[in-house]
């Protein structure tokens, strides 16, 4: 029997192997607070696994289910942690702005002239952290008029 990988939190992107039902039960990881935030963002924005993997700079969308189910460690003190903090700030402001919660996900996919006819989501996907900061500035300073 191969050695069982240890499940750790905050130490890197490690996927817990699931080779048998017993192992699945024993090795099921815990969904931590930061991962719960990612779940909230993914749900509010109706993100596909591919989009979420891209936003979080994972090399493959196949890692996303493991992340969301707590089977893969989410390292918070990394570039990925910064991405989640920015995305949650955007989500938090938008959630207060839109009366109808479902409009938040729609808006993310609307093309806007002030973003050179890109959607906010496309801007974040294409320009990564600078794009996320641009959307955060648009949402907080201009749309929320702070």
């Amino acid at each position, binding site marked *: 029997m191969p050695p069982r990988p240890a499940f750790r939190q905050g130490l890197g992107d490690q996927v817990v192997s699931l080779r048998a039902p017993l192992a699945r039960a024993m090795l099921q990881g815990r969904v931590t607070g*930061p991962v719960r935030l990612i779940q909230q963002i993914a749900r509010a924005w109706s993100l596909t696994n591919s989009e979420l993997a891209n936003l979080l700079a994972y090399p493959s969308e196949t890692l996303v289910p493991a992340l969301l189910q707590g089977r893969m460690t989410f390292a918070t003190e990394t570039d990925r942690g910064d991405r989640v903090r920015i995305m949650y700030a955007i989500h*938090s402001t938008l959630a*207060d702005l839109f009366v109808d919660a479902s409009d938040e996900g729609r808006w993310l996919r609307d093309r806007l002239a002030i973003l050179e006819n890109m959607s906010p989501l496309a801007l974040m996907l294409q320009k990564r952290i600078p794009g996320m900061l641009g959307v955060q500035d648009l949402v907080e300073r201009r749309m929320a*008029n*702070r």
Partner: protein
Amino acid sequence: MLNRARAITVSERVSRVTQSPDRRRKVQRLRDDLRNGREFAEALEFLGGEAALGAVSITELAQIPFRGPPFSEGRYSAGTAYGVLYTARRYRTANKEVAYWQRQFYNPSPGVTYRIRLQLISWLVRGAAKDVRRFLNEFPWLIDDDHTQCWALGAQARANGLVCLIAPSARDRPRGTTVPVFVSGAVSQGGYDGEVTFFIPAAGPVRFRTKFT
């Protein structure tokens, strides 16, 4: 123009439509989403603690435009050297000023109308000011979409130690009055007056409805 304007001392309430970044509300949202357990504590720590979730009071909210650089660009500031708290004498003028800018932020599909919720806030502003409204016919750039000359006016007002201007509103003609505030300490006694809902359809004008508390 500023030298010819009448100097006054203001002590009046002014309004602004904004999203109140109420920290308590954001913490409660997080608690609702994650429940009040271990994950909530982890998420709060990850986000930087409660202090990272925004202003806690309306007084603190008034300081945000003055934090920079960079500051927000607006009619009376290019956003590079100083910030301005944009307010209006009447809530309806504040609503109209915000409604005007909403269209560029939203592009709903045909048949969809976005409903956007902001808060109506007011403060007491006190201090030296000048009223430039009577110069509008002579200087129509006071309400022009090119803000270059208004930036110079704002810089001069600030250099002269004025806490605010009493100025014509570009979006609430002909009687609307805006009050751009240049000094963060000039406003006090912040109050939450109500909620404003903006209706943004795919085409046509942006409408709004104010619900007072």
